[in-house]
């Protein structure tokens, strides 16, 4: 089993959820993160003074999937999250040794 993590632009969340729904994926965990990268932060006006906020709000998605469908999941996220502009984000895949569905105690692929 694999964990697919994706750092994406916040406004892309629904589109990526759509794309995952198209391939039967419903279980996703999402959190709001701050990204530092090549995409520069924005300027903000605060008490009259303008200053650069050097981080960008991003969304981090985590999806645990079975091995056979990882590449399909990665492709779906990649296509849906892409704008072609700096800051589109990254996807990383790591190996998961065990998964448990707390409600039923199911383990492994049955928990997915």
């Amino acid at each position, binding site marked *: 089993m694999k964990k697919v993590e994706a750092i994406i632009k916040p406004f892309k969340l629904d589109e990526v959820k759509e794309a995952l729904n198209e391939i*039967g994926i419903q279980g996703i965990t999402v959190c709001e993160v701050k990204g530092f990268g090549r995409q520069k932060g924005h300027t903000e006006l605060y008490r009259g003074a303008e200053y650069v906020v050097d981080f960008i709000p991003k969304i981090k998605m985590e999806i645990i999937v079975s091995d056979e469908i990882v590449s399909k999941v990665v492709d779906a996220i990649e296509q849906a999250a892409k704008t072609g502009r700096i800051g589109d984000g990254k996807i990383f895949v790591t190996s998961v040794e065990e998964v448990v569905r707390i409600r039923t105690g199911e383990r492994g692929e049955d928990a*997915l």
Partner: protein
Amino acid sequence: HDDLTARCRAVLLGVAVGDALGAPMEFMTSGEIAAKYGRLNEMVGGGWLRLKPGQVTDDTEMTLCLARGIVTAGGWDLRTIAHEFAVWLRSKPIDVGDTCRRGIRNFMLKGETESPPNQWDAGNGALMRMTPLALYTLGDKELLQKCSIEHGHLTHNHPLSDAACICYGRMIQMALLGAEKSRLRREADRLAAEYPSFRFDPYPGLATGYVVDTLQTVFHYFFRSRSFEECVTSTVNQGGDADTTGAIIGGVAGAYYGLEEIPRRWLKKLDRGCVTELESLAPKLVSLSPQLTQS
């Protein structure tokens, strides 16, 4: 023949009625239901899915998918059925069972039409959508058996699920052809003889999504009730997986008691489109059956 057509409609409508009546009770215990509703026998809506009164769930929707798949193909084509399930899954249904989702996803992504055997796949997800198969294979026990297993294995590959589907299909077919309740009882007893865990007398009182618990609940209330309304009402008041136990007993009670006995007030609450489609698919399914094509 008209009577048969009406009974076939009663089977599919019985599923929808049981589903819609029970769905708001899903995950509640019989005690909680009694405390909140007394004896529930109206379509109240609500529940964990926040349903509208009369709204059906995956039990009826997957039944429709199977029916559509058979009628569209004009016969038995597993991939057409799997495709219907896939289209449905993508449509963001109100609810999808975990095992059903996994099986349909495997078909969508890998083209697989058979889930690997799995000790955890003895849920009621294949059983709950069996009724169109009972209509389509009327008159040919072997065909019922073959189709039940192939169709079940799209999502649930487990001997208990297989046995439950075949027994249920047989009982519906006997009822459609006018069998007495005692005859149906012998069929249930045959299942319990082969798989003792299905014994339902005394009734353990469990109405979970485990196919054994589900069928025990359905058998228990079917054989002690005297009307369609009593069958479905007592079942959903047992709580647990009430939409599915309700749908399953609704199917066999529809076959046994006929269309006239389905309470009008319940039918009226169902979505018009859903009712129309079920009413139109029923005769189409049975007209494809060996019972009618070979006579």
